[in-house]
């Protein structure tokens, strides 16, 4: 047994609140690994991703679930994507790298980001106060993903359900971002 142990304390660990018409929570154990497609090796990388996840890498601005439904592939730009799934510890990058068999570059992004899930019939009304993107049901369809700026902070917003969204923002400012979302919910209640 090592003499010392490290206790995990993500910025919003355990946050889970219900408001009238909206739920807001910080998902536990979110793992995020970025995948970069090598120049000239894009096809090989895309094949490796398809083989590993049973789903083709979607176009930029879109996301898809893996065949087993356990991982979400988010295409951020022509040569970059995230794979997001549930895993308890921030050490999963080598595992993703192994699944891709060296056909893509991987970087652990797990603790770079802090997730917030917002859902409910009033979710869009609340987000209207901070999100400059058009996230109406017809325009921002399920699986759509976009990076944008909310209250001075970079945010990756992914529509995960009828009225559910996953919001990823930088871990260091996660508390400020939570405050911004909570204020929006309060202001629209």
């Amino acid at each position, binding site marked *: 047994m090592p003499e010392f142990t490290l206790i995990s304390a993500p910025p919003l660990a355990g946050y889970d609140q219900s408001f009238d018409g909206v739920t807001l929570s910080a998902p536990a154990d979110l793992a995020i690994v970025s995948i970069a497609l090598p120049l000239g090796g894009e096809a090989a990388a895309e094949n490796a991703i398809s083989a590993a996840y049973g789903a083709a890498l979607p*176009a*930029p601005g879109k996301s898809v679930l893996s065949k087993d439904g356990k991982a979400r592939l988010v295409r951020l*730009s022509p040569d*970059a994507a995230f794979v997001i799934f549930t895993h308890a510890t921030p050490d999963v990058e080598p595992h993703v790298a192994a699944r891709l068999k060296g056909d893509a570059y991987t970087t652990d992004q797990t603790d770079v980001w802090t997730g917030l899930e917002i859902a409910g019939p009033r979710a869009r009304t609340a987000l209207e106060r901070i999100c*400059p993107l058009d996230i109406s049901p017809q325009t921002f369809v399920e699986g759509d993903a976009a*990076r944008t700026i909310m209250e001075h902070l970079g945010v990756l917003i992914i529509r995960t359900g009828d009225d559910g969204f996953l919001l990823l923002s930088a871990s260091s400012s996660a508390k400020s971002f939570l405050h911004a979302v909570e204020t929006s919910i309060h202001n629209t209640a």
Partner: protein
Amino acid sequence: MIINHPLLGPRDAAEFVYLGDASLIDRPDWQDKNADEKFYEYGYLRENPAGKHQELWYHEQGDRSWLVLTRDTLTHEITKVEMARDVARARGRSK
């Protein structure tokens, strides 16, 4: 302003950072015999047109792509948006 990103569609200019003249892509060769003069022009001399202007914008709060916009500096009309990487290749910056 709204910038119609070639891959992501219309986005508020607030997501972008402006750099300037797209001639910044045309960085001279350091081994050129007139490298001094060329770098001086590259570094300091810009056209300042009242009208169509090709300029570099960076989608910092987006997909991190550099774009080349053709924008009218009088009306802000944006007539073309290209991926800067494609423009750079077209201008012969491939290795």
